[in-house]
């Protein structure tokens, strides 16, 4: 770890690089931002933006369950609840005739309410309010290791399944006719989203996590001409907004998560102008 820090100090001879928490946050963003970019492309393609938003909100209930079970780090409970939550939405979406956004909204508000109710019991909610906006500066080297494991897992998934996901997003019958196991791939994708969202929520925050999934991909979609450009640009936008958001927040003394989202939003609006010109 020390060697990496020294390399960073050599490359970035600026004051922000004097602090270990800044260096940790920098590395964390380098690992996690590409994942947000990539996974975001398929969330946007599949019109799942509202779904991933609801999934983020469900984290509150996940945390509450974790606390009730007495687990110190509630991330396992969050992931488990997130997967069940996402699976339930998908199941009902497939079998009920109500419109999707209604179903997602019902689930989303129920889980927020349930989470808030459980966590506020005994007037202790302040303890958990950090989950709402997150704190990327609290990342330690052990967390980085977890992030690397998640990174490898999701990249492997992407290598094996992104083609299939694309075909499903275009037309699920068409995918089925090419012998793709549509339900299986869809469920795996949901698990991937749940893991990515829940693992990052502590650092990014429930309120803005979805913007990190959607904005880079949406910006990239405005100007990309094919899937390769779409993925590469989404990853680049995600990394650029993550790193510049981190450094800007250091010099301005504002929270990091929101700064990252603001940079991502600015990129989105710039691509919107380019799209209009074409």
């Amino acid at each position, binding site marked *: 770890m020390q060697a990496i820090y020294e390399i960073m100090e050599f490359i970035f001879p600026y004051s922000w690089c004097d602090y270990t928490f800044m260096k940790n946050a920098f590395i964390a963003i380098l690992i996690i931002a590409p994942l947000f970019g*990539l996974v975001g*492309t398929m969330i946007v*393609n599949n019109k799942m933006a509202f779904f991933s938003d609801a999934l983020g909100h469900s984290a509150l209930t996940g945390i509450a369950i974790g606390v009730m079970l007495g687990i110190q780090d509630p991330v396992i409970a969050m992931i488990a609840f997130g997967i069940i939550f996402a699976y339930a939405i998908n199941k009902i979406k497939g079998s009920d005739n109500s419109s999707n956004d209604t179903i997602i909204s019902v689930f989303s508000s129920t889980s927020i309410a349930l989470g808030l109710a459980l966590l506020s019991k005994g007037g202790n909610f302040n303890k958990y309010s950090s989950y709402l906006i997150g704190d990327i500066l609290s990342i330690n080297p052990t967390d980085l290791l977890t992030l690397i494991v998640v990174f490898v897992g999701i990249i492997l998934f*992407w*290598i*094996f399944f*992104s*083609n*299939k996901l*694309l*075909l499903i*997003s*275009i*037309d*699920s*019958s*068409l995918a*089925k*006719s*090419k012998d793709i196991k*549509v339900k299986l791939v869809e469920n795996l994708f949901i698990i991937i989203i749940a893991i990515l969202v829940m693992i990052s929520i502590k650092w990014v925050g429930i309120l803005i996590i979805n913007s990190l999934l959607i904005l880079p991909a949406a910006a*990239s*979609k*405005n100007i*990309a*001409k*094919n*899937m*390769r*450009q*779409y*993925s*590469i640009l989404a990853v680049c936008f995600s990394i650029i907004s993550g790193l510049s958001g981190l450094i800007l927040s250091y010099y301005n003394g504002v929270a990091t998560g929101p700064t990252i989202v603001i940079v991502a939003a600015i990129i989105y609006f710039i691509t919107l102008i380019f*799209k209009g010109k074409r």
Partner: protein
Amino acid sequence: MKKEIACGHCCTKINNISVKIGKEYIIKNINIHIHCGHLSVIIGPNGAGKTTLLKALIGEIKHEGKILFVDEKDNKTKKIRMGYVPQKLNIEKNNPTSVYDLFASGTTNKPIFLFRSEITYNVVKKHLENFGAEMLIDKKLGDLSGGELQRVLLAFATISDPELLILDEPVSGIDNNGMEIFYKLIDDLKKKLDIAIILVSHDFRFVEKYADRVIMIDKEIICEGSSDEVFSSKEFKEYFGNNI
């Protein structure tokens, strides 16, 4: 498209297909036998279960019954390779999927977000030439016209050498001239490739001209036969009156 002339002996057997939702049958006991090189057209009123039948055939919805393919060469029954052309694609106009992306994602396991394979690109381009669509390879799916998209989808459905080609109301969003071109293309495919084709259609003028067999369904098969037989049947007149 180098295959021999249709042998007419291989047989696709669709046996006793039923789809049930709750206690109600959406389609019931559909039996269709199709020989390669034949175009079978399915017609029926709205809500008759035409699309459901197609979705059952490609395995997207749970169904009773079996689909078998009997190869004349060795008389063995095997799993059938299918190609499917959907009615339309539910994608937004700025969806960045190019025609190449569609083909590459459906035919190779190489992740297209990382590589563009020159070999695949050339294979796809060559195949698109058969459909007069090679110049569309780098275009985005959302930018294609109705007719262009249909040709691309037909090419996509046939690239894996299917034994049965399934088309869902492919003519929506295409003008009269475009439909004529489309049906000619199907006719061509039928003759050049050794495949059976099932098509759901509403346009009886083209059905009369091109179909080898017409199957009218309304949950069950109501009547079937050559287009003349079906169009002059009393069942057909009950449903559609006298105007074709």
